[in-house]
């Protein structure tokens, strides 16, 4: 067993794929940051809201206010440093920290693909991605080598496989496969897409896309891993992600996934990519080459492989935590996040909060737009943990305004995947008496329907 581990962990492979991955990842992140900034979203999503929804356990995180721009700046600059491999370890650490800090500021903006970036950048902290074709290597700031331990590249492949496989498994449910929901709602609304618009109205297309999507997610890891099918798989990757980019507002994610899957190709392709980069650098007169001693191997930190191992085990297990909760996952969303459940359901809600005086019985309804942005209100009205956090915020707010014996109730309705809206949270419950924990939220009302599947 130990020898197996030893053989695996010392097995060597070319460093070029990891170097290319580092360069492209840094570049894509820089573009993402610039795009986010230029669209004005830093302001609308992080500065405008007067209240933000915190993740469990991160209530203490200070809101940086205007300094959130500084965070984005750090994030962008560190992405450049990652790409060029300049003081890589510090740069990737800074990138991970600043990016994750931004994501932790408000869970309203939670997206699987932001979580993916956090995971990937965390993983990259422990990989010797700067040992080749980097400024660090040029200046001898790190172990320089043409070869690296194979596990480092494999860990990125594994993470990608997990993302696809779990996204595919999550689609194995009756709403997705039997009812073609939510694509049956989403696709017809894209009637104005050239060429595709009319086709998207067809019922069979909704089913074809649902089944095709599930099949794609479940099979693509294997098609990418198996050499004979790899090129075909990459064509599929491009087609699939470009299509999702056309159909849905998912920003940079499709491009990031397309670029990331290049890691599955062997060193020949990556060698060619690096040659192409060198060509550009030579034109710009920035190219410098160094001699690399082929006998040394860059293996990174000693403990790195252990950290990555533990990280992967967590990644494999975390999406299954929902099994420990009773009731319908899509309805309660207990264990929903951080599980690669991507574009899986259409949920809309309406939450009317009632502030009561428990002594006098007098009550009034809250206008959510006084406290939340429309985006926050939309996210809040379908997710129990948001509703609870907001109720507590309202309780504190009205207490501070001198209200006595405050109780906060909510009359809420949620429609899931085209079903008629139904009452969501028990309106009898004073939400101020409920604390957010990892235990089952028994104040969520019954779903009154069954979704079969994983």
């Amino acid at each position, binding site marked *: 067993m130990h020898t197996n581990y030893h053989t695996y962990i010392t097995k060597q492979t070319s460093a070029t794929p990891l170097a290319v991955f580092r360069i492209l990842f840094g570049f894509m992140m820089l573009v993402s940051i610039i795009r986010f900034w230029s669209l004005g*979203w830093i302001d*609308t*999503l992080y500065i405008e809201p007067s209240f933000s929804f915190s993740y469990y356990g991160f209530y203490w995180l200070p809101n940086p206010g205007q300094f959130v721009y500084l965070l984005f700046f750090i994030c962008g600059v560190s992405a450049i440093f990652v790409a060029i491999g300049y003081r890589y370890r510090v740069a990737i650490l800074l990138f991970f920290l600043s990016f994750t800090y931004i994501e932790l500021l408000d869970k309203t*903006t939670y*997206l*699987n*693909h932001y979580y993916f970036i956090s995971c990937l950048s965390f993983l990259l902290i422990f990989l010797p991605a700067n040992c080749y074709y980097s400024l660090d290597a040029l200046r001898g700031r790190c172990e320089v080598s043409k070869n690296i331990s194979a596990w480092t590249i494999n860990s990125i492949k594994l993470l990608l496989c997990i993302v696809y496989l779990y996204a595919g498994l999550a689609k*194995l449910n009756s709403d997705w*496969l039997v009812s073609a929901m939510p694509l*049956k*709602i*989403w696709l*017809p*609304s894209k*009637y*104005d897409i050239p060429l595709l618009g*009319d086709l998207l*109205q*067809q*019922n*069979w297309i909704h*089913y074809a896309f649902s*089944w095709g999507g599930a*099949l794609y997610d479940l099979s693509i890891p294997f098609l990418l891993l198996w050499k004979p099918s790899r090129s075909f798989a990459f064509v599929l990757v491009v087609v699939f992600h470009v299509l999702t980019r056309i159909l*849905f*507002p*998912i*920003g940079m*994610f499709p491009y990031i996934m397309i670029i990331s899957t290049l890691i599955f190709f062997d060193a020949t392709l990556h060698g060619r990519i690096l040659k192409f980069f060198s060509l550009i650098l030579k034109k710009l007169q920035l190219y410098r080459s160094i001699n690399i001693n082929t006998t040394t191997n860059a293996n990174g930190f000693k403990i790195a492989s252990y950290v990555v191992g533990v990280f992967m085990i967590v990644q494999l297990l975390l999406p299954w935590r929902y099994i420990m909760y009773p009731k*319908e*996952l899509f309805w309660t969303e207990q264990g929903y996040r951080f599980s690669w459940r*991507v*574009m899986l359901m*259409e949920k*809309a*809600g*309406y939450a009317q909060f009632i502030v009561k*005086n428990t002594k006098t019985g*007098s*009550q*009034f*309804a*809250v*206008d959510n737009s006084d406290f939340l*942005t*429309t*985006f926050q*209100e*939309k996210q809040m009205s379908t997710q129990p943990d948001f509703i609870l956090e907001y109720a507590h915020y309202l309780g504190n707010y009205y207490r501070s305004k001198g209200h006595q014996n405050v109780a906060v109730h909510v009359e809420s*309705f*949620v*429609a899931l995947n085209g*079903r*008629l*809206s139904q009452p969501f949270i028990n309106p009898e419950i004073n939400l101020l008496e409920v604390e957010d924990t990892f235990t089952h939220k028994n104040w969520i009302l019954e779903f009154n329907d*069954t*979704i*079969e*599947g*994983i």
Partner: protein
Amino acid sequence: MKKNITFILIILLAFVSACGVDDTSDIQPTDSYDRSALLVNWADNIIIPGYANFSQKLTALEVASEDFTQSPSAISLDGIRNSWLDANIAFQKISMFEIGRAQTLNYRNRLNVYPTNSQEIEGYISANSWNLELPSTIDAQGFSALDYLLYGLGTDQELLEKFTTGPNASSYKMYLLDLVTTMQNLTSEVFSDWNNGYRASYITNISSSASGSVDQTVNAFLFYYEKALRAGKVGIPAGVFSGSPLPQNVESYYNQTVSKLLLTQALNATVDFFNGKGFSSEYQSNGFSLNSYLEALGSEKNDASLQTLINNQFQVAFSKIELLNDNFIQQITNDNTKMLEAYDELQRNVILMKVDMLQALSIDVNYVDADGD
């Protein structure tokens, strides 16, 4: 979700065996719904005739206001009061279309913010100086400011005195005329925009994005229904948002007798818009509406279609409103429960339209532009 292994096996088997999913489930006659026809119906049969009708009533109000200010008398007072009510009713038919120029002008608020600020009005009149273009004067203009001047100055005798022999008589007259002229100007600005170019861009903008005409109109419609009709006309005065009733916040507070009439007219207009009913018999509806759009999408829920549920709910709301006193101040003071019941039934349709309908139409309730998952 049931962690049902058999189901997964069946699905996997199906994967292997099924080449095409032959869908036997009935629903979905989804041929592309003609959104241009929908927009044409809204523009040509509902919105533009609505503005034409309202402009006409405002012209009558302007004539009546000139009559009244030139020779204030019981008869001319009667005349302007009638024109005020006619115009107010006509306004209820177009108030929900706060898009295009109306949106940039803040049209609804300029014409119908209530409660009005009588002290502010009296202040302007005694100072003989005001500027209705200032945002700060928004609660001193429009229908409710007229309501104050036409019904809130005491008995008819006292009112006529203020406009004839009172110390500020000419100022009162000027203010009244300025109120009507401002409403007239704002309306003709919106109306002429519809007639000169906006209609053309409106009916061709069938984009599915938040800036598309369908999205904009539906969002404006729902915002109106939720905030202006449900909350403004019923919820706020009934104390839903304040803990205790606020009878002084009813629409047409000084007239007292038409709050229910205005609510009913507004709800009628809402239902007509939902069903795509043309503005008057001259304009024949072509049937394109939110109702027919939902029908085309096949939004079946349990037993009934969503559009039926919504229409039924409108009828329930009407039946609760019928039980109310014409005078909402009395209703709220004597038996606010009925008012709250009417509110609850109006509220049910906020959920059916804002949650279920928007989901079925896949329209975002807001204009926030952000990446999705």
